[in-house]
């Protein structure tokens, strides 16, 4: 029996999250794993926006910033539980994406890229400059989520690293599951169709503007949740989370791994999170090697690492 791509992806992810800790030489790797998962969540959103619908955003870190600062600010100012603040941040990001997306999603290609870039920079600037509210560039503490303590009371005691590893891993799998379901739904099909040809999509009855907006909002929520989880995990957040580099990172991870597939993009998130750790052996040449790796992947494996590798493997037995 052949597994559907969806079940295969979920099984692979589940196995990786569950079994990787067996190979961890130290507790530090739980932390790296959790970072990978947090990035993977944002990147899954990029897969929906860019991989399915073919729209480019260079400003999604803006939404991550909103998610992160929601968890920092809402508990302090409104007494909202940090866990609920995650949902609040996701809601704000979604509404903002809807409002911002309506005018700018009419743009195509690099125009859209620049417009979203502007949005991201705007959010980062507000977070940096509204010192009274956000404490500016020095960053701000984030309250404890409290879930680990709760699990401890229930008799499941995990180290902080372990807790965040499994919790973010679970969130990533749920996110991937939603994205995979979307892929094969009528909405997902329509998104992939408009990626191919907007004119043809309109002639079969697809409301292109509405659908692009929907993809933009969904991916913004993914970015926001990713930002929230990062903030809750670090217990601290700075405006860098909304920074331009973070936006670029998300897109690079997705494209490097394979933006058309959820598993590929998550793979990209893993590689780009791990690679800097590995490349420390190159000391000051680290960034150069990283850049070189990225250029080579784009030249020789255009569809992204994972899809290209899978294709090569399949090509052999066909």
């Amino acid at each position, binding site marked *: 029996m052949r597994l559907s791509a969806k079940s295969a992806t979920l099984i692979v992810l589940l196995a990786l999250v569950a079994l990787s800790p067996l190979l961890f030489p130290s507790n530090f790797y739980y932390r790296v794993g959790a970072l990978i998962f947090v990035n993977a969540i944002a990147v899954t959103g990029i897969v929906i926006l860019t991989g399915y619908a073919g729209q480019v955003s260079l400003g999604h870190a803006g939404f991550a910033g909103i998610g992160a600062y929601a968890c920092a600010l809402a508990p302090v100012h409104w007494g909202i539980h940090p866990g609920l603040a995650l949902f609040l941040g996701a809601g704000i990001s979604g509404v903002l994406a809807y409002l911002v997306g309506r005018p700018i999603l009419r743009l195509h290609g690099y125009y859209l890229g620049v417009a979203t870039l502007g949005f991201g920079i705007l959010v980062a600037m507000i977070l940096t400059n509204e010192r009274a509210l956000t404490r500016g560039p020095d960053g701000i503490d984030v309250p404890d989520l409290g879930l680990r303590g709760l699990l401890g009371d229930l008799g499941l005691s995990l180290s902080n690293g372990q807790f965040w590893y499994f919790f973010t891993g679970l969130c990533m799998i749920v996110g991937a599951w939603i994205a995979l379901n979307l892929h094969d739904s*009528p909405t997902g*099909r*329509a998104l*992939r*169709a408009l*990626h*191919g*040809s907007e*004119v*043809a*999509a*309109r*002639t*079969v*009855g*697809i*409301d*292109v503007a509405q659908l692009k907006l929907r993809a933009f909002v969904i991916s913004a929520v993914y970015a926001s949740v990713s930002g929230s989880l990062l903030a809750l995990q670090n217990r601290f957040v700075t405006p860098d989370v909304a920074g331009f580099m973070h936006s670029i990172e998300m897109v690079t991870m997705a494209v490097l791994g394979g933006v058309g597939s959820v598993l590929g993009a998550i793979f990209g998130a893993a590689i780009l999170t791990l690679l800097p750790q590995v490349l420390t052996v190159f000391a000051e040449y680290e960034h150069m090697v990283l850049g070189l790796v990225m250029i080579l992947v784009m030249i020789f494996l255009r569809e992204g690492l994972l899809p290209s590798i899978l294709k090569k493997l399949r090509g052999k037995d066909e």
Partner: protein
Amino acid sequence: MLTVEGLRSRYGRIEVLHGIDLQVNSGEIVTVVGANGAGKTTLLRCLSGVQPVSGGTVTFRGDQITTLAAWRRPARGLTQSPEGRQIFTNLSVEENLRLGAYGFADDRVDRDMEDAFQMFPILREKRNLSAGGLSGGQQQMLAMARALMGRPSCLLLDEPSMGLAPIIVSQIFDTVRGLKDLGVTVLLVEQNAFGALKIADRGYVMETGRIIMEGAAETLIADPRIREAYLGI
């Protein structure tokens, strides 16, 4: 069924349709023939709503649809197989068909897909393959099948014979002819005037953005001017 009155359209400052009048009655196959650049495709793009209209009106089944958004038209019963086929090459054959029935209930879609496979058996064989891997003729069949998945009352066909081998062209024309028996009204735009007029009930001849002649298909096919200019006889 479909009435076009004084239709004008422009690309930027250049007007390419200078007032087109055209009528398609229920159950007819009507063809618009003309040379390359006559404005045939622009006309069809106006009818499907992807090209803005700068003057005149389009009426479909009693409703003015001149400025109706393109994506709302299939639900009204007006679907299109666009020029250059415009199939979704990154999707599978089946997904392309399903998109033709976008917004309709699944059980209905499954039944209609079965009908499409009856009409074009090759599509059944290739249903799970990427549509981009189909040959030109198969892609044309897919484009037509996709347009039919919306259960149109009127189907707009743009150059279905374009770039295809003669044997495939005659197959495609036979299929179009067959649509008439299914009760589908067809507006067929073609450069291949002879093939189109042979299967059509009525025809219009277009030249540089104007209709220069109209009449029953057999009259046009017999007209010496048409024979010389478009049929190469």
